[in-house]
Structure formats: C-alpha cells, structure tokens
C-alpha cells in the first residue's frame, strides 16, 4: 500500500524539463556578491599607518609654507630651523637635562597618583564602609579643580619638587579612582551568582572575578591619567620652575625664541605619545583574552 502511495509523489519531485520560470520577486538576487553593496554602512577596511596621514599633511604644509616664504619665521620658524635648534639644544645638553627633569616629575607623579588611586578605589569599591568614608571625600575633591589647589600646596610644600609632583599625582589620582571604582562596581551580577554557586571564598572571588573584571576599566583610567599628568606637568613647569621642558619653553617665550618653543612642544608630544604607546602595550599584555575579539 505504501508503494502505491509513494509512486505519484515521485513525479513532482523529478526535475522538470525546460527553462525554469523567471522569478517574479524583485528581491531575489543571483550572481556575484560584489553587486550587492553590503558594506554600505560599514567603514572601509583600515590601512596600516593610515592614522599618520593627517600629521604628514600638516608637516608637508609647514615645509611648503616655509620654503615659499608664506609663513613669517617670527610666527612659525621653518621646520629645518626647528630641527637645527633641536639638534643644538640636544648637543649642548640643555635638552637632555630638561627632558630628564620633566620625565622624572611626570613619572613620579604618575606612580604616586596611580598607587593612591588604586588603593582608595579598592577600599571604597569593595566595602560599604570604605565607600561611605572615602567616596564622598573624593567627589568633593573632584569638584575642586586641581590647579586651584596650587596656592595651598605651595604654602604647604614650598615651591620645589614635592609640590610639583603632588599636583601631578593629584591630577592622576582622580581618573584612576573614578574608572577603577566604576569598574569594580560594574562587575556583572551573573558572575557574582557564579561565584556563589561555585562557593568561591573571598580571595578567590577577588582573584578570579573582581580584579580581572575591573582590569579593563583600570587601564582606561590609566590612559586618562597619563593625559592628566601631562596637563599638570605643563602647568607646574611654568610656575616657579628652574628646569624642565616647560621652564625651557617659558624662558624662550620671554626672549621671543619661537624655534625653542616649538622644539619644546615637540618633546612634549614625543613624551605623550610614548606614554600612550606604553599604556597600550601594557593593555595588550594584561588583556590577552581581548585580542581574540579585536582580531
């Protein structure tokens, strides 16, 4: 009986001879995918080093403008003048000593500010008592611009290095604290549930869930902190300083040496970019699991 039933069913399944009727629906597309603009909304693929295009064009404009005498050298000296000055400053040792002073200041401020930010964020992020004692204080501090504290810190610490490092450290402390505290409190509830189900003890909970979960937030804080340290460095080096890149720049301003000013700014840029690259490398080393998503 089943064979009788199956026989008529076999006929429609056989391929029908002749050309297939043209599809009436307009949404059917047959052919190479290149005809479909599927990247209409996506950004084009990144070209390695493409980010350098803007700076390169700026440099080219500067070279052409100086070469054609379109730019008054008193306003902006030619790139080769700046390069010459840079070389001169470097060879007579002024650049090196000022650079070292600035780098040490920024480094010390970053180190103290980061350690303080991490400790306070952990205390206030992981306990309610810590939050009640510390978070309010930090928020009040945050409302007062760091630069407004300079007169007070000069009274307390004098005009020497401790005051300068303290200003930088305070500038660094805020973004570290904010980002890390936010990241600690932002640990997903489902991971906390998992910790309960797996009966982790508190140390295991910190080691495997809280700290690695907050690490990305901390590294973002560190990037912001590096930027904050730079701003603070520039400010403190123009107040009562007798050395440092900022001092070199303000002195050059007094004598109208635009080329020295530009050379100083170039050093600041190099310092800033180096710090940014270091933080990015640190992030890559500490978050290897994220590389799989970035491709």
């Amino acid at each position, binding site marked *: 009986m089943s064979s009788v039933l199956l026989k008529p069913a076999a006929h429609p399944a056989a391929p029908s001879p002749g050309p297939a009727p043209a599809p009436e629906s307009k949404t059917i597309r047959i052919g190479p995918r290149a005809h479909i603009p599927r990247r209409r909304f996506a950004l084009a693929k990144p070209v390695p080093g493409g980010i350098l295009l803007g700076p390169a064009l700026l440099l080219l404009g500067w070279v052409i403008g100086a070469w054609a005498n379109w730019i008054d050298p008193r306003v902006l000296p030619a790139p080769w003048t700046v390069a010459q000055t840079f070389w001169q400053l470097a060879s007579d040792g002024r650049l090196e000593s000022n650079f070292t002073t600035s780098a040490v200041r920024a480094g010390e401020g970053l180190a103290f500010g980061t350690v303080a930010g991490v400790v306070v964020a952990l205390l206030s992020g992981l306990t309610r008592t810590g939050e009640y004692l510390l978070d309010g204080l930090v928020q009040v501090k945050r409302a007062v611009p760091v630069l407004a504290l300079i007169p007070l810190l000069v009274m307390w610490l004098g005009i020497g290095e401790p005051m300068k490092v303290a200003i930088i450290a305070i500038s660094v402390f805020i973004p570290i604290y904010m980002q890390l505290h936010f990241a600690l409190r932002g640990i997903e509830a489902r991971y906390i*549930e998992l910790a309960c189900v*797996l009966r982790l003890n508190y140390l295991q909970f910190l080691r495997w869930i809280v700290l690695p979960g907050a690490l990305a937030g901390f590294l973002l804080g560190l990037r912001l902190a590096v930027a904050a340290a730079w701003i603070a460095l520039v400010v403190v080096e123009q107040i009562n300083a007798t050395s440092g890149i900022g001092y070199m720049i303000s002195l050059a301003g007094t004598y109208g040496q635009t080329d020295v000013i530009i050379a100083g700014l170039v050093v600041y840029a190099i310092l800033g970019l180096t710090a940014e690259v270091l933080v990015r490398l640190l992030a890559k080393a500490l978050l290897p699991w994220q590389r799989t998503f970035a491709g």
Partner: protein
Amino acid sequence: MKPVVCVRGLERGYEGKAVLDNLNLDIAPGEFVALLGRSGSGKSTFLRALADIDTEVSGSGMVVVPEGLAVVFQDARLLPWARVLDNVVLGLAGGDARARGRTALAEVELAGRERAWPGELSGGEQQRVALARALVRKPQLLLADEPFGALDALTRLKMHALLRRLCAAHQPAVLLVTHDVDEAIALADRVLVLEQGRIAADIVTRGTAAAALRHTLLGLLGATQELAGTS
C-alpha cells in the same frame, strides 16, 4: 531511598505577585527530572531557589538540597579572562584539581583546548566547558537552566546525547529546566509541568509512548490541538 532534593511549601513572590505557590517536590538520587513550563510559569525562579541565588525575591518554605550541587546556566557563563581549564577548575580545592579538570574536559570532548580563551570557542563548545565545570565537582544534584536554549538544533541534539552519556556515567540527580517538550521527553525519567507557580503534572516517562506523552505535554502547555497532533 531517601530523596536527594526535598521541597515543602515553597512560596516565592516578586513585588507582591506570587511566582511559586505552595510547591512540593522530591527528587530521588540519580533521577533525571525535566521541568517544563511556559515563560513566566516560575520554572527559573524555582531553579534559582534550589541553587540559593534568588536574592531578589521574597518567600518562605523548606528546601533541602545536597551539599554537592552544580549549576549550568543558559549562557555558558565562563569567565572571558580565564583560560578554559582555569574556568573548569575555578574554586576547586586539592592538588589534583587540574588533573581532574583535564579529565572532565576530555569527557566533554574538549581535550587539547585547555589553554584556549572562552571567546575562541563556539557556543556549543562553551556550553560543554560549562558542563565540564559542573561535573568535575561530582555533584549529587545538577541544576540546568535551559542549558541548550541558545544553541542551534543540530548542536542541541549532540548536546543531548553527551548529557545522557555523562549522566549515565556520573549518576547525579538532574533538574533540567526547559521549554522544549521534545528535549524533556528525550532526556528525562520524569517530567514536571509548572503552571502559575504550581506543579500541574508529574509524569514518569518510562513505559509511556513518546507520541502520547508529547501530545499530553503540549496540551498541558496550552498548545492548540492541531499543533499537538502533528509530529
């Protein structure tokens, strides 16, 4: 035999609305129980009450569960920053923990992937790691909250076979929360239907014809007769 799970008069409510209503249940050691129910029937709330992670709801009642309890969630819930083996042995004590973890990974056919990051695995592989993490603890009770709900149909079938094999080998009592009637029939010794916070049906699957059981269960879940008739 003394039941491994004993629930008496369990009540759970959320914002004044009852989610579980005077619920009673015993599960025998090694018994595989599937808990079916529509969305909002309270099945996840029940599982969370057994796992003692239902902090957001209020309620009363008696729950006795064994010390050796493991949970598999719908999302594999692996720590993305920990390698596969570290995820499996997370919180496990003892010097042989890592060796046991390797064995568990081999059991779920993931030997050799110990050092992979969870983000490098497919959804099915991640759920297998979650199974290994549960089984390496040698649980007397395994709670599974729609563990295969996010997987494609073919992977789900493979996972069914794997789970059956693992349960036969380790003999834990299982409470599997699912909304999939066929999954419940394929895996369970006993099927419960939860309806508005109460157990509306408690059916032993052994000796019941699958087609008839399917028809009954679909009817209990409120599917229309035509839908229940097709197979």
